[in-house]
Every structure is written in C-alpha cells, then in structure tokens.
C-alpha cells in the first residue's frame, strides 16, 4: 500500500485515502477531432515499466486532484505536483532524471 503526499493540503497519507485516476497530462480531443486523435485520447494509455506520471485524487481528504511521478517497477515516488499543469514541472523532471538518467517522458523501457 503506497504512501503519497498530497501537494494541495500537504498531508502524507496511505493509499486508501487516495484514488488513482490513470495517466496524467492527457490532451482532450472533442468534436471535430479525427477518429485517430479521439481514439488516442479516449483509450490509448501508456503502461510503462518504470517512470509514470499519474493522476490521483485525495478523495478521502481535501478532495483535490494532483499528479504523482512514480516508478511502476520499484514503486519509488519521485514527487507529487499540481494537477493544474500541462507538463510535469522542471523540479520533478530533474529529480527523475537524477534517479533515472536518460529518462524520456513517454518512452517505454
């Protein structure tokens, strides 16, 4: 059972306090988008062995959504950050790069 820190309220808590919400930083494709774009947005998800950027909600706490950068292999948590962003912040990327040199976002290892 993971331990995560909610970046909104600052609480460090057990996984049971949170709810996982899948891959982070999806770009929404609505009406007028091509079938391929919509399919990718709606259904296609990364399943990396290694670094993953995920959405979580502190649903049994402050109720806020946030993002977590996590290793799916070792379960190491590199950091959590605001959900109100299109890209992982530089400091999170730096932490990941320091621990997983050569890491590229979205690349499958």
């Amino acid at each position, binding site marked *: *059972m*993971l*331990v995560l820190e909610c970046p909104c309220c600052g609480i460090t808590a*057990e*996984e049971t306090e949170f709810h996982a*919400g899948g891959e982070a930083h999806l770009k*929404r*494709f*609505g*009406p*007028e*988008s091509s*079938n391929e774009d*919509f399919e990718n947005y*709606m259904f296609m998800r990364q399943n990396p062995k290694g670094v993953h950027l995920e*959405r979580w*909600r502190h*649903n049994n706490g402050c*109720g*806020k*959504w946030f993002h977590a950068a996590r*290793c799916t292999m*070792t*379960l*190491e*948590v590199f950091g959590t950050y605001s*959900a*109100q962003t299109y890209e992982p912040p530089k400091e999170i990327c730096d932490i990941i790069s320091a*621990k997983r040199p050569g890491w590229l976002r979205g690349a499958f290892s």
Partner: protein
Amino acid sequence: MSTRLATGGRLLNKSRVLSFSFNGTTLKGFEGDTLASALLANDQVLMGRSFKYHRPRGVVASGSEEPNGLVQMGEGGKFEPNQRVTTTELFEGLKAKSQNHWPSLEYDVGALNAKLSRFMPAGFYYKMFIHPRSFWKHVYEPIIRHAAGLGAAPKATDRDADTYEHFYAFCDVLVVGGGIAGLQAAKAAAASGAKVIVAEQTAHLGGRAVVDGGVIDGQSAEDFVTAITAELEAMDNVTIRTRMMGAGVYDHGYVLGYERLTDHAPEMAGPRHRLWRIRAAQTITATGAIERPLSFAGNDVPGVMLASAIRDYAVNYGVSSGDRTVVVTNNDDAYRTAIALKHAGLDVPAIIDARPAGDDSDLMAQAKALGIRIMMGHGISSVKGGKRVNGVEICAQAGEGAVLEEIACDAVAMSGGWSPVVHLWSHCGGKLTWDESQASFRPDPNRPPLGDKGQGFVSVAGAANGETTLNAILNDANVCGNAAAKTAGFKGKVAKAPIAQKTTERAMLPVWLMPQGAGYKLRSKAWLDYQNDVKVSDVQLAAQEGFTSVEHAKRYTTLGMATDQGKLSNINGLAILSDSLNQPIPQTGTTTFRPPYTPISMGSIGGEARGDVFQPIRRTPMYDWHEANGADWEPVGQWRRPYAYVQSGETVHEAVMRETKNTRENLGLLDASTLGKIIVKGPDAGKFLDMLYTNMMSSLKVGKCRYGLMCSENGFLIDDGVVARIDDETFLCHTTTGGAETIHGHMEEWLQTEWWDWNVYVANATEQYAQVAVVGPNARKALEVLGGMDVSADAFGFMEWQDGTLGGFDVRAYRISFSGELSYEIAVPASQGQAFWDALMAVGADLGVMPYGTECLHILRAEKGFIMIGDETDGTVIPQDLGLNWAISKKKTDFLGKRAQEREHMVNNERWKLVGLETVDGTTLPGGAYAVGEGTNANGQRVMIGRVTSSYHSPNLARGIAMGLVLHGPDRMGEIITFPGTDGKDYEARIVSAVFYDPEGEKPNV
C-alpha cells in the same frame, strides 16, 4: 511409543493438567503444551491422512512449517478446519478431529489411492479427466469436487461466534521474530531511541537458541534471553508482542501483524484475532530458518520427523517422540538431537551421516563420547512400517540403495540442512542469492524491497540471513539493529554485540536424494511436499514432460501449493528439478513466496467490519417514521429507502399495487430526500453545465427547471435529473440517488483537471435538505390546506420552482413530475423533514393520502415511459438509443460525450432502441429477458434482437407493461416478438409506444 518424559519440558506448567479430546477420545496434557506435543505425549503419532493418496501421516515439525498435523477444531460458530497442531496451544476442553479420511483415521477407504499411486502421478487429473469433453460437467466435476479439499467447510448456517479487530501502529523499527537475533536487533535499534515493535509468532521468546543451548556472554542461552527480554521490557520505546506473526510485508513499509489473542484461552473476553496494520520506517526480519527433510523412501511414515522437532518436543515439552530414534543427517545440527535424546535417557541406535568420513567437529565428538554409533557416508534406503516407523534399512549414500543393515527403531530424526525464512523479504520484491555453503537461498542485501524514496526498507538478521553460528547470528543482528535505527533517522548510541562461545562445525553436504542413485521404486516413495503428496518421481516426471520452468513445474505437480506454501519442500523440489534438467539450482531459480506467511483468519481480515458496521447506512430524516409505518426496506447505494409501506394483512406486492392506484387517484407522498442535490455556482456555472449536460443549461431562466442528461466522455448516459436555476450564477442539479457522490466527483474532476481556469464551485448539498414529492390529483389541494405560497396553476407553472412558506415551514418547491401526475417536490431543511412530513400526512388525511415507496415510483414512471438510470441504461446506452434526442443540443459545439456519440457505431441504425412492450396475454414479461430473432450466431446460439429493461404489473392499466431495447424497435411498432423465459416458456410481446398511461399528458396539466 511416544510418551511423556519424567524430566524436561521447559515450557510446561506440570501443576496444571488440561483435558482435551481427539476424535472423541479424552486425553490429558499440561498447560504449556501444544496440541502436537500433547498428542505425542499420549502416543497419538498418527494425526491425519494425506491429501491425494490418503497416506497415514504424523507430525513432522514443531512449528508453523508443519504440513501434516492439520485438524478441525471447535463446533458450531467456533468450528474451524485445517488448524496446525504445532501452533495450537492446548487449553482445557479443546476438541480436535482429524481430517480427510473415511470412515476413520485408522481405517480409511481413500487409502486405496495409495495402492494406485503408480497410476496417479503428476498431472494425473489433467490427463485423466480431459476426454470426453461431455463428461466435464456431470461426471468429472462431481468426482473432483468430492475428492477436493482437506477439512470440511463450516456449515452455511453457522456464523463465526468470535469477534476480530484491526489495530493501526506506527514505528521506526519493526522486528519480526523474537529469537536471539530479533531480541538483539531490537536492543540495538532501541538503544538509539527509535520506537521499536517486536513481533514473535509463538507464545515464547528465545527461538531455537534456548533449545539448542550455547553460552552467550558467559550465560546460558536461556539466561541471556531472560536478561535481554527484561531489558527490552523496561524500555518505554519498545513494544513486545508474542503470539503475533509478521504475516506480510507490503509497499512502502506496510506490514501486517496477525496477533492471536484468545486462541490459547477461548474463555478470555475480547476479540480473538487482531490484525495490526503497521507502518514501519525500517523492518528487520529475524525470522530464523526452517530445517529441510531428507528425501528417502518412506520419509512420510508417521514417526519420521525433523531432527529439530524431535529435539523441541524433548526439551520444550518433555515428550519423547520414540524410544529408539535413528538420526539421519547431512550436517552437524542433527547431532544436537542425538545428544539431547541421550541426555533424556532415550536410545539412539545410530546417527546415519551422509557425509564422507573425516575430521570430527565438537558436536560429532560429543556424540561419540556418549557412545552413539555414527555411520558416515551412509543413508536410509527405506523406512519400514505403515502407520508407525518400526525400522530403517541402511545403505551407502553413494550407491543405489542395496540394504546393508536393518536397524529397529520407532522414530527417525532427519535433517537435510537449514533454509533461511526469506518469505517476508520476498513479499515486496526482495531478491535472493544462492548460498553454496549452506545449499540455500538467502536474501541478497544489494537487492532489498524498496520504499517510497527508493531506499531499502527491509533488512534481515541472524539465521534468516543465512548465519548459522551463535556468534555470527548475534553480531549480524546487532549490526542490523544499529543500521536500521540509523536509516530510520536515529543517530544515538550504538549497541555492542554479545559474544558467544565458539564451537567448531563441519560443513554440511547437499543431499537431495538418499541414496544418491535411488531407483524409481525408492524415488516414488520419497516425499517432497507432504501436504500435497508430491514425490521426487513426480517432479522428475514433470521435467521429463517439458515443464522446465520452476513456475510451470510447481503448478503441474502442485509442489509448494498447499497451505504450508512449500516451507519444507521448496528447496528440495527445486534441487530435484535442477538435477533433472542438468543445471545448477540458481539457474532454475525459485518461485516467490507470497503473503501471508501462514494462513490468517478471514475474520481478522474483516476486522470489525461485519454485521451492522459492515458499511455505514444513510438514513433520511423520516427514516424512523417509515420504519414505524411498515417500510419494507430497499438498499439504494448506502441509503435505505422504503420499497413499500406494508399494512397489516397485505403482502408487499399488494401494498405496491395499493400505493400505485392511490397515487393516481388521490394523493401520494414520496420521501425523495435521497436524490442528489448539487449546487453549482460561479460566473462560469452556465458554461460549465453546458459541457456537463447534453442539453443547453446556460439558457435556463432563473425560476425555471429543466430536465437534463449527463454522459461520460465516452458518450454513454451516466445520470439524469432536473436542474433549477436559482440565480444568475447558481444552479441546483438534481441527480439520481445512487449518483450523487459520483456526479459530484465527476464535476470536481473536470473542474480541477481540465477547466481549472473556469470560475465555478460545486458543493454536494444532498443531506442538507429533506425533500418530499407530493403527488396526485389532490396534491395542490393538500398544499393549499397547508397554506402559504400560491401554488395555483397560474402562479406556479410546470417546470418552475419557488421559495416560500407552506404551513409555516420555509420551503423551496419545485413543480416537477416523475409520475405523470400533478406533482410538487418540496424541500425543507433536513432538520424540519419529519415535522413537514407529519404536517403533510395531517392535511392529507381527508384527501386520501398514502405514503408510497420506490417500487410504486418505478411503476408510475414506467407507465409514463420515463427512463431510469440503471434500468434503461447499463453503461453501453447513449441517449439516442432511448429516443431522447430532444434533450441533446444541436446548437452546442461541445459537451462531454458529443464527440464519442459521433462515432460510426453510435450513429448507425443497428443499435437497439427503446420501445414499449405489451404482452399479448396481459401477463408481465420477465425482467431482463432477451428477445430472439431468426437463425443462430457463430456459436450456434439463437440470434438476439433485444432485451427487457423494465417490466411491471400496472394496477392502473390492469396488465403487464414493459420497456425494452429492440433492434430497429421504433420502426417495428405493432410487431410481436418472442422472449424465451428461464422458466422454459416463450413470452410473446407486441412492440408499442413506451408511454402507456395518459399519452396526451393531460393529468399534470391542471
């Protein structure tokens, strides 16, 4: 025979005799006994029958690794099968029965399987029960089910009479194992100031050292344990729990502790088991090692036991496992058993040592000095005896088993070396390394389980880490304890390791088969996994048949798949597999141990969450009134809603019919408080709701209501309800009862993660209001009698809402209808709910008022063809399927689900669409029935062309009415289609409009 010795028994209180029963016979034991030691003390060596061949079996071990000694205990609500005799502490009145035999333990018909064992090798069931396919369900399955399972299941009508609880604990260092390694590690960690918890699965601290002896810091091992225990108990930062097993290690330092509080004393008050949910910064597993059996023919005959177990029974419980014990070994440790037995005055005819002759170690010299005959380079060819050992045939270990000599004996003490208990290390990903010198896997300190910062959070101390001598164990534990405290952030004092007297030991010799060249006959009687009846020959057959992966071989032979998870058999089985594959053991690898370490009770997993506290129940403010007035409750999410109000002398169905007629003819009251009420507020509220609902909400005028549909981004209908515009920036969205929390979450998700720059707030106000639907021709009259606001048709139109007072209550009234009747839904503050309900009942008395429940609500809406989320929808239905195109905006460029609904298979004409269904003979269609068309599909099944989504008997129309989704349904009005029922009958129904009652909508329009 096995019997109680005059001396020994360090754990016994001989002044307290306990009586217990085994298979109905009353026996005596002492306080401090385990069930195993007490049975042995009564010469009850035969304790059970094996799983597959029903071989007679006795106890092999003395601890939690025991595979054979499984019994069923207790009766009624205390009945439990598969309890290990070795971990069951004796108590007064204990009742145990052996398992897996018929008619009795002594004479078991199933033992015929043993005679046929040659024809029942590995994979027997797969090979035997594959053809013909038609036999699978009615011939093979009953046979296999009859043979399956060890103990009996509790009776379905019995409820667990005990209680259980969860306990949350946090510490810096958790030490699992209360042997000398665990105690020393705890002391080292605690010296720094760290908060330490020590968990020991048995009732006693000290582990093996107190049985094996040795001198530590000039004291006996026993005195050392007493002293260090006292020291730890005196420290405020140390908690020691005995009878608590470290059951499993999980992500980020989460550990489950399984504490057995009253198993040893059922008369004690309080919960039986306590599940500790521990978060530890660092966990030290000081879980010791488990002795391995040797694989020789007849190694499962009752009386053949692990050498350490025989020693434990003699020293801890003063029990002799036999008068004459032959020791067979490949290492020094078993000599301790020979020496202990000799000291207890018992006969040890010989020590059969598979190692070649060479220099004597201290222990070997001691045994020799006691006059014990030692046969180096020898092994056991075969054990004589059926239900009890009566002798062993001796052979050269190097040969094929030619018998050199037969030695009479009634017990055999075997030792194949020791395997560190690596289970907890492995649970969360710790990797293992092969230790050539001990022929065992031990934890690889470079590859520990990793925590949230990527740090190792488990370390291993003592014998669990592969250490074998007292000095090395204590030193390792001390280093481990110091390091764990430091890693957990404590930089205080560093403890020093105690020093034990050194003794010389001769290296062990890996022996995987005895004798080395044993032929098939011997190999097919050499057991690896006692509980699942897997023999050396089975693993060899698996390898021969191509099951070369350890994971495949395990599943094919069932090696290590019994309730003991292969604690005794794992390494022996791997070694045989590796040998068959001609590859070293590390190359074969090992299967991974999974939690829990030994089975834990289902009750402890549930904890307090059972019965009334299994989950919270949500009650409306009028709950007690409903209860007092005959409510037949229906769970709706966590809410309880009245299904109907049953009056005396009527059935539930009759009550529903009465309520449904009365609401159409007079006046009905529905407690609608559970409907979701979500407030959406802010300058961008209209824009936000335009995205959430399929229709336009931003154009709704203040004071008006509008019915809306919500879809997921994937296009499917997820909720519906009436939206009221409260003011320019405020909307109140009604949701379904079950959907309130989900829809609130859905709104939050889109607001926080997609449109976070929109200025909108949402709040779930469901429980702030009690809401009553006042429904029926007399609805307006009732409100007029209450008095206050003007509810006339002119002043208060359909799909409008108003704030005001009624009968002195502050209300918000909505003129909306889910029944097709004149109807007002009136919200009052939750605290006023009951009083308002009472007032309505009072004024309604002359107007034919009756409360109605959810089933009546369903019939009323079905008569009108109104859809219900969860009936007409199931997560695959789009609004267009339900003919709700009128509620989908064509003006909006975007809303959730719009793009998805444009997909090809959403717009084609092959989707099933909503229609009304009317049985030809007026009966009621079975709910959920499927309609069949012409022909069959690729699987030979009849083609389906539709299904029933709602079906009721309508008392107002005096016939069955239904709605369903049917292929090309709206284009087939008047056609009759067939629904085969599960009762074998065909139901014929005509496709009609879904609006059965008042199709012109005149009734509410007054």
